[in-house]
């Protein structure tokens, strides 16, 4: 027999159900809220998981020691690298769950996202005197210091890396790297290897032709771009028309296109330059000094030598690139003072940098002047070339709130030419026009 529900019970169930549903989001919100309590200051330090090993082994022990002495707790959180921007953004949007310190690209987080706190004056003043001049623009937004790398930098701009064994095999003098872009072309013709069908199986000089982000293609194109006297855009005037499509830029684009399309001296299927080089599928490439550690770690036994970027028109380049990575302080965080104190006393110090830079998976180039004459720096394979780059003064650093988007669009133009989809001029004219729109928006 079915028992009939009374009207009163029916009403009661309905009301309770609706009230519970209405209260659910509120209750859920209460559970996730931050619990304020007295006691030690708690700092959350976010890192993209890419550099976890360096942080865990070279930075964390010193941070923990400092924290124990200063009634502070520092929690390190490794954020998976894939789409870390979206993960960071969710935290910053919620505010309550945002980290106190986070590692990111200065131009984006201090510029486009505007969540980074400018450095306190006293610390900025100290770094101004202690740090090598050439690296400074990469860490400043609108003239203000925002951070500094915690483990050195990849290097003072790109440099030529070549395999002396391949040189000897091709009848080239391993002690005489190409000094000009014309020589680089000549050397590449001698070093390239092709199969019976004409496909490149060893690049004379590897080119970055593809990648997840345009940024990678743009930065790997800089040695050619800047050697020919071209520029991506003018960060000072915020202009790209006549710059991203200048005669010099187009000449540089045509030059790299010779490698991938015209004479086929570089592969467009074998992978990124460092992988090609490590697998003995490229005899030359352009990368930064941190390859001094990366190549032996990932491809032991591969012989390599560093040399300055060959000249086209300009004599040398100096440090050039996009904005740098750095630990930054969240500007709306409740513990900003403690976060800056930690960076000042432990992370942004010559001693701390030297320890982290030397970590085997890092092999970073030091930014502090005090570290330049240390046995670590002097013993580096790229030391002489880094000094050569430094002696050439400051190169172009594309510090702008929209650097990432501009680099993506610029790289698209370069790539269109390199893959033979458009003529260099047509591709770069379109890129310059779009970049102008981005700069004005």
């Amino acid at each position: 027999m079915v028992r009939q529900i009374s009207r009163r019970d029916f009403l009661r169930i309905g009301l309770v159900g609706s009230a519970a549903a209405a209260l659910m989001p509120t209750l859920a919100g209460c559970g996730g809220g931050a619990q304020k309590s007295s006691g030690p200051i708690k700092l959350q330090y976010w890192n993209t998981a890419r550099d976890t090993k360096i942080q865990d082994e070279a930075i964390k022990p010193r941070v923990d020691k400092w924290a124990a002495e200063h009634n502070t707790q520092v929690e390190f959180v490794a954020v998976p690298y894939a789409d870390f921007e979206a993960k960071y953004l969710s935290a910053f949007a919620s505010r309550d769950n945002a980290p106190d310190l986070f590692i990111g690209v200065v131009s984006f987080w201090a510029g486009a996202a505007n969540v980074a706190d400018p450095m306190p004056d006293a610390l900025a003043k100290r770094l101004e005197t202690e740090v090598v001049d050439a690296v400074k623009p990469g860490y400043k937004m609108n003239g203000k210091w925002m951070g500094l790398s915690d483990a050195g930098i990849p290097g003072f701009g790109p440099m030529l890396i070549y395999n002396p064994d391949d040189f000897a095999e091709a009848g080239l003098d391993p002690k005489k790297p190409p000094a000009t872009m014309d020589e680089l072309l000549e050397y590449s013709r001698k070093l390239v290897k092709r199969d019976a069908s004409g496909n490149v199986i060893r690049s004379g000089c590897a080119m970055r032709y593809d990648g997840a982000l345009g940024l990678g293609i743009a930065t790997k194109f800089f040695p050619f771009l800047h050697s020919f006297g071209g520029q991506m855009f003018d960060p000072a005037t915020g202009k790209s028309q006549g710059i991203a499509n200048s005669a010099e830029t187009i000449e540089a684009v045509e030059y790299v296109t010779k490698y991938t399309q015209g004479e086929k001296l570089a592969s467009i299927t074998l992978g990124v330059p460092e992988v090609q080089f490590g697998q003995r599928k490229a005899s030359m490439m352009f990368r930064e000094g941190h390859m001094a550690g990366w190549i032996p770690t990932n491809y032991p036994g591969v012989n390599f030598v560093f040399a300055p970027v060959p000249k086209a028109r300009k004599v040398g380049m100096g440090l050039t690139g996009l904005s740098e990575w750095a630990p930054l302080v969240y500007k709306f965080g409740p513990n900003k003072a403690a976060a800056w104190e930690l960076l000042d006393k432990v992370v942004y110090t010559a001693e701390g940098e030297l320890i982290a830079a030397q970590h085997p998976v890092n092999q970073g180039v030091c930014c502090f002047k005090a570290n330049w004459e240390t046995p670590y720096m002097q013993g580096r394979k790229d030391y002489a070339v880094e000094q050569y780059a430094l002696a050439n003064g400051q190169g172009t650093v594309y510090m702008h709130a929209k650097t990432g988007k501009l680099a993506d669009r610029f790289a698209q133009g370069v790539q269109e030419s390199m893959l033979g989809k458009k003529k260099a001029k047509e591709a770069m004219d379109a890129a310059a026009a779009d970049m102008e729109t981005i700069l004005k928006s």
Partner: protein
Amino acid sequence: MKQQRALKKPTRWGAQEERFGWLFIAPMMLYVAIVFFIPLLFMVFLTVFRWSPIDGSSPFVGLMMIKQALTDRLWWLSLANSAKFMALSVPATVILSLLSAVAFASRSRLPLKGLFKTLYFLPLVTSLAVTAFIWLWIFNPDYGFFNSLLRALHLPTLLWLADTEQVIPSLVIVFVWARLGFEMAIFLSGIESIPHEFYEAAKIDGAGSIQSFFRITLPLLNPQIVLVGVLEVIAGLKVFELPYVATAGGPVNASRVAVMHIYESAFRYLEFSKASVAALILFLLIVLVTLIQMRLTQRRFEY
């Protein structure tokens, strides 16, 4: 009078019952409102307000963001890539899954039939992002399986994902492989629900298997064909994770699809308003294409 009152009473109870009914569905309506309608309204709001998730500011910008989004060449290229992807994937998935279902249905004594069905269904339960990595190896122009096969057959090799013309067809191969099992299961259940007497009667009348397929199976499978077609159009237009993992939209944006553009606008460039305009266009496009498709393909068949 007494009788009238007795008649009225259940009516009042009926009205109250209706109100209580609303109370019962209120939790679900609240859920739908929070999860679907409020975000949809917020998306429309974002098209005219420049919202910052960081500080919560949202100044009114009128039609500026809409204009910027509509004049963005990269958006139209991404949308065209999605349309190209959908145009290739829909017929391929529908035809291949239908043929597979017919093959399974006609081979009732096929040994290990259950195992084969499971194998067809397996790609659907595997993450597309994970399988994309396996396919990256298969497509690799230098050491990949496909080119090794072509070389062994003395045929010219292809660039697959590394070529602007070949990248979308290559991704469609993976997509069709991943979705085939699910669509086949829908068709198979449709075929199995067709009364066997129809085929026996057709056989007595002298119809062959091809005639039976076109005169019986295909017309009676119309609801399933419409369903699979609609699902595939939606899946094709909103494809994201496969090109995102396999090619990141490259080479030269040749596989950059509409959803990838929306995602990057919002989370890489912090342009939420432009992303919202693009999302709204995509949403309306999906609705429009689905309605047209249903109007053109839906048929009522009765035997």
